[in-house]
């Protein structure tokens, strides 16, 4: 029997990707493709779970019963997204707990937006509107990702993200139309979250080290800068609609290109936060570590009980 060379396998793999055939867990795939996906999907999962914290901060103080229920449901959805994504990581042979330990040790990253604090209720509006809004831009193309389990998880996730975006925009709308205090609260939240939201799309294309290969493998469909532009184009008119001001003096409409031009992003700040020096990095990781450590005895009890049950059954 003739041995199939690695080059042949890679060619075949690329052909499948090029003709939009989904790669499934048991299919052959280049090691680097597997590693890239494990890194990306686990970071995505961590972002969902860490992302519960800034909004969780306001559940107990939500201003009325309806807002409390909606926020609870929203944050619960994010936990669900985390679960689907951890399952998708496991199809690649990675261990869920190991990836979580990598998060806790600082080895694995997560979306840096969640390292900004949520001091006011309006931040619940800004996060839903801008952060979930940016997440939709990133995730809709991922529904066509070449890796089947990731693409399918994204289909479920995207359905819920649009509800998240709407509830956030609705909170902002109510505030923007409210008392002067409420309007100031909304503007302040937009001022604080605008630039970090633009950073969510990652470094500029010429700085982005994994982008090219990911596009070739059809993990990624659009470049960081294209997605960022799309987000700005969609979001600026929404801010106008509710009478809030985007905190960017350089923002202007370009008739020729049909796009908004916007100011320079502070990449120093971005890298500082990614490296762990943002306002809440320490607190976010501590909260996740505490949850795991405080839950250890519970996990042990559950597995000890299951083992006892199984033993009784066979006895």
């Amino acid at each position: 029997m003739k041995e199939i060379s690695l080059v042949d396998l890679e060619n075949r793999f690329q052909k499948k990707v090029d003709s939009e055939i989904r790669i499934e867990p048991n299919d052959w795939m280049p090691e680097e493709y597997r590693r890239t996906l494990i890194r990306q999907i686990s970071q995505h999962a961590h972002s969902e779970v860490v992302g519960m914290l800034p909004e969780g901060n306001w559940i107990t103080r939500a201003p009325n019963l309806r807002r409390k229920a909606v926020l609870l449901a929203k944050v619960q959805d994010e936990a669900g997204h985390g679960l689907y994504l951890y399952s998708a990581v496991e199809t690649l042979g990675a261990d869920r707990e190991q990836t979580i330990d990598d998060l806790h040790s600082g080895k694995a990253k997560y979306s840096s937006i969640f390292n900004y604090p949520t001091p006011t209720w309006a931040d619940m509006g800004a996060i839903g509107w801008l952060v979930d809004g940016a997440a939709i831009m990133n995730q809709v193309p991922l529904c066509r990702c070449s890796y089947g389990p990731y693409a399918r998880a994204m289909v479920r996730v995207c359905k819920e993200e649009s509800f998240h975006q709407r509830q956030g925009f609705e909170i902002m709308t109510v505030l923007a139309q409210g008392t002067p205090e409420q309007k100031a609260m909304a503007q302040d939240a937009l001022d604080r979250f605008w630039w970090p939201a633009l950073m969510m799309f990652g470094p500029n294309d010429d700085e982005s080290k994994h982008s090219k290969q990911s596009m070739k493998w059809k993990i990624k469909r659009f470049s960081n800068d294209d997605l960022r532009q799309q987000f700005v184009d969609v979001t600026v008119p929404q801010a106008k609609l509710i009478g809030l001001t985007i905190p960017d003096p350089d923002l202007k409409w370009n008739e020729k290109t049909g796009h908004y031009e916007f100011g320079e992003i502070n990449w120093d700040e971005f890298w500082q936060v990614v490296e762990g020096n943002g306002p809440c990095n320490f607190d976010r990781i501590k909260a996740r570590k505490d949850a795991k450590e405080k839950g250890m005895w519970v996990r042990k009890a559950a597995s000890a009980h299951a083992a006892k049950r199984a033993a009784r059954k066979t006895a």
Partner: protein
Amino acid sequence: MNSLFEYLLRIGDDSLILGQRLSELCGHGPILEEDIATTNISLDLIGQATNLLTYAAEVENLGRDADNLAFMRIDREYKNVVLVEQPNGDFGDTMMRQFLFDAFRKLFFERLQQSKDFQLAAIAEKSLKETRYHLKHSSEWVIRLGDGTEESHSRVQHSLNTLWRYRAELFFMDEVDNELINKGIAVDLKTFRNEYDSFVSTILNEATLNPPAQNWEFGSGRKGKHSEHLGHLLAEMQYMQRTYPNMEW
């Protein structure tokens, strides 16, 4: 005093305060799956509170709504049992508190479905479906923790020892109940006390846990007299409504 209003507050505040307590845990559960389950129970309870307080406001007919009742009363006006305002503690405390409460609520809603007050009966029917699931969940955890490891057994035994004294208040009755029992609206709680006790002891048995040998009873929340914990819970829950009164959110 309007007895039906008072009765609705008692049931509604139990849901509200426990729902609020559980919502503190969102994002901090011991396992992601459990985080989702706890949040779900919290959501159900906040939903029940909304239904019950909306109806209470309607019955009171003084122009207040469910949010006014939920966020603008003073501590003495909350009529929940002291059990539900107890802090979350560790996971064993949270589950034991939930178990002692769910076991009561399942039996209670089963009977309240027959109420001659149709709106109350409808709320009970919907809440019962949720409560059955909550009770299954909390009973299973009590069993797992009790009959798990040595550590989990001693932790949850300690939870039982500290929470046991609060269960009797669940069966508190006074003239409010008596008036409404006569009208066929309220449930006579005495009719299922034995059933409650025997259900609880079956689960505790399976969990290899022993109720403490104490028979003094504690709690006067139904009369508006609360533990020190409620004030802190309210300070947090009412923060927005107190800081920015009369605004829409």
